[in-house]
């Protein structure tokens, strides 16, 4: 390949204090190619992206645009050099229309006033050219996430971007939206743009990219042609070892019933029943999975079971004891632990140290405290044990949880709940947004807990995860269990229709 790359990073390095985020990272983006940048959480992907877009200054190394060295002091410089970035968290003004957002900062003018008609025409033309269906006059705030992302892409294109950097573009999209995005990226590539997609989702990498750069601990560990590699090979490069996420069915027979739910009804904040008569049972040594499209009552079911929301009717029986009206703490003390779905809002206190988070929820009893007074030594020992057992990195219990990557945060959360000595564990989206290495460790911990005789209720939006871990799968649709199947006999295809309500009277 002798064509001059549109954008090239040459041996870029960047450290945050003692932490080396990027070390001599080189990368070349060429016209008409989609380049995937993959790596675990914390591997340095975002740092590289930020340097390329002028958000962070490299400590060493050069950035070349069309073969010429440039200094990017700010995103403005980067845009002037023909770069465009689609951030993971959109930079849009909700109150403005699509067209107004697209031209923001370079509004077409007529007689000192913004020429809205021209802005809309330009937006419509760009949208048609790249197959990005949007209504230029729609207010951005009311659009679906996938459409908002299209607006972000249009914004970059309107700024004249020849190189597009996309940071975790699929993290917030539904499956259909992902397909649409990949189609857009292919069209942009065919138009001769250079595209960098930062992600840790390997199926998408395999589906859309032409070449892949793998980062591990801030260094490039692989530069490959997508056609010449596989998702398995990439995941091993990312993690640095063999990764196994395959199904491991239980070897023991489930023992006594630990959790029984009878006709549970849980209302949402608006008073409507979100869980509408759910009954289920979880025995010691088994994993019961709850499948369903998000928003069908999963969150309320979990909150009703763990006690964060009191059920309107029905019973929750924990090891033979009715805890339907019990507080979260009483249920915890009785052996019901749970991993909430939103780790940063519900599971952890991001501003507190890893050590404090490691005992949150069991802080009121030994070893974390005695007689209402915290025991520093007990907390430190618990934190050390957790950090070691779950390979939390960096292994410093004094760091605030917010300073950890998502995968490591989740290890702290799952580890804490599993080591609290539970008899029943409810796991909601235990691997959401975590990389494959952390996912493998969390899956292993869940299966080990199952084999140790815990009763586990697993709520997940990832069917592959449910199929790999569960023994029985219930499908939740509009607050009811509409389908129950032995996980060994289930497939992704067979679960799809009941999840969408097929065969259910509305």
């Amino acid at each position, binding site marked *: 390949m002798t064509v001059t790359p549109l954008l090239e990073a040459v041996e870029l390095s960047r450290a945050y204090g003692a932490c080396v985020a990027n070390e001599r990272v080189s990368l070349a983006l060429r016209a008409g190619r989609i380049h995937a940048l993959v790596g675990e959480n914390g591997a340095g992907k975002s740092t590289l992206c930020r340097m390329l877009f002028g958000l962070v200054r490299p400590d060493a190394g050069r950035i070349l645009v069309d073969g010429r060295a440039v200094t990017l002091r700010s995103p403005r410089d980067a845009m002037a050099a023909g770069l465009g970035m689609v951030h993971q968290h959109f930079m849009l003004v909700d109150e403005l229309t699509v067209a107004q957002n697209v031209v923001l900062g370079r509004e077409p003018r007529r007689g000192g006033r913004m020429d809205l008609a021209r802005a809309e025409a330009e937006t419509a033309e760009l949208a048609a050219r790249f197959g990005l269906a949007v209504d230029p006059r729609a207010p951005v705030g009311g659009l679906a996430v996938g459409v908002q992302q299209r607006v972000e892409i249009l914004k970059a294109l309107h700024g004249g971007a020849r190189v597009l950097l996309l940071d975790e573009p699929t993290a917030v999209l539904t499956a259909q939206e992902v397909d649409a995005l990949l189609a857009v990226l292919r069209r942009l590539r065919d138009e001769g743009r250079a595209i960098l997609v930062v992600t840790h989702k390997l199926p998408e990498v395999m589906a859309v990219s032409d070449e892949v750069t793998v980062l591990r601990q801030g260094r490039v560990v692989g530069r490959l042609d997508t056609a010449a590699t596989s998702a398995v090979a990439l995941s091993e490069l990312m993690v640095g070892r063999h990764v196994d996420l395959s199904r491991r069915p239980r070897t023991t027979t489930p023992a006594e019933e630990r959790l029984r739910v009878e006709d549970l009804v849980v209302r949402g904040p608006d008073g409507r029943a979100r869980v509408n008569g759910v009954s289920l049972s979880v025995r010691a040594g088994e994993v019961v999975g709850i499948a369903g499209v998000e928003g069908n009552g999963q969150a309320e079911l979990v909150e009703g079971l763990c006690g964060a929301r009191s059920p309107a009717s029905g019973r929750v029986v924990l090891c033979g004891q009715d805890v339907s009206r019990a*507080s979260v703490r009483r249920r915890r003390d009785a052996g019901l632990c749970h991993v909430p779905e939103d780790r940063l809002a519900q599971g952890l206190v991001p501003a*507190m140290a890893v050590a404090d988070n490691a005992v949150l*929820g069991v802080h009121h009893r030994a070893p974390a405290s005695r007689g209402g007074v915290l025991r520093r030594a007990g907390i430190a020992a618990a934190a050390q044990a957790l950090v070691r057992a779950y390979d939390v990195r960096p292994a410093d219990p004094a760091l605030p949880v917010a300073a950890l990557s998502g995968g490591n945060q989740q290890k702290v959360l799952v580890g804490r709940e599993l080591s609290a000595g539970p008899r029943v564990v409810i796991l909601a989206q235990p691997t959401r947004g975590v990389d494959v290495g952390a996912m493998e460790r969390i899956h292993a911990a869940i299966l080990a807990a199952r084999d140790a005789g815990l009763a586990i209720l697993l709520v997940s939006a990832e069917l592959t995860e449910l199929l790999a871990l569960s023994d029985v799968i219930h499908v939740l649709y509009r607050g009811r269990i509409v389908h129950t199947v032995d996980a060994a006999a289930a497939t992704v295809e067979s679960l799809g229709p009941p999840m969408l309500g097929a065969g259910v009277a509305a």
Partner: protein
Amino acid sequence: MLLALLPAALAVTTVAVLGAIIIGALGKDALEVGGQALHATLLTGYGLSQVFFKSTPLILCGLAVAVPLTAGLFNVGGEGQLAAGGLAAALVAGWLAGAGAVATTAAVMAAALAGGAAGAGCGVLRHTRGVHEVISTIMANFILAAGCGWLLHAFAAEPGTSHTPELPADVLFTRLGSVLDAVQGSLLSTSLPLALVLAALLQWVLWRTVWGFELRASGLAPRAAVHAGIRAAAMVVGSMALGGALAGLAGAHFVLGARRFFEEGMSGGEGFLGIAVALMARSQPAAVVPAALLFAALSQAGLSMASHVPRELVLVLQGAVVLVLGGTGPLVDALSRRRAEVRDG
């Protein structure tokens, strides 16, 4: 750690520079006036004892803000809680006149209870009805000021005056001068050690006890706290009650340690100044003490300059301190975040 001192250092610098500019603009020699004020405030026994005396209610009012702030609640009702506490202290001490230390103790407890009830009420409104505590405590300030004024004039005032009857010496806080020769003749009383001990105790409670841990967790991440089995009601109502009780104690200080009676408006805004103190201390009970001393020194220095400059100067400088704190708080947060920033992938 040093970063935490940045706002205080900036505030002191601002006061010095701004004060010098204003004094200079008034046609005085800023160095001379300022030097004299500094000397009179910090290098004379009288000046120092006045600083500590004035800091006492500020420490209590600062703690009254700092404790709820730890739980994520902004108690701006110190002024009203202080009034409720002051009236309760005056009434109880009056009834028990002649009972000595028993009366003092009962009056202090009554003050804490009255202030605590006022704070707890706003906490209950917050938890059960979702009424924002800033709104409810501001409104409570009006209600309590008017209510205490009405109670005073209707039932409790000494005829012909606008205050309660003067309390006998035996029910008042003991003057420190009577046991400590060094501060003989000063206004300092047992309310100062009480405030200092409370600051130290609360520092311990917030950072070393289960309750303090739960308070901090609910302040930083309320939903995570609920999922961890921490009862939000106990945190919201408890911290507001404790905050109110501390402000109530400041009321007891005015009645039993300064005025010898309760009158309307006796605090002169200490309840509000407590907010600035707590912000400067970044809600750390131990740091409330030096912050309160700084504000007290500022006020005392202003008094000692009264013959040279208008007394409003102190109010201007106090306002400047609050503005500097407001401006530097986010700055410090940003700086410490940057330090904590680790590779984020």
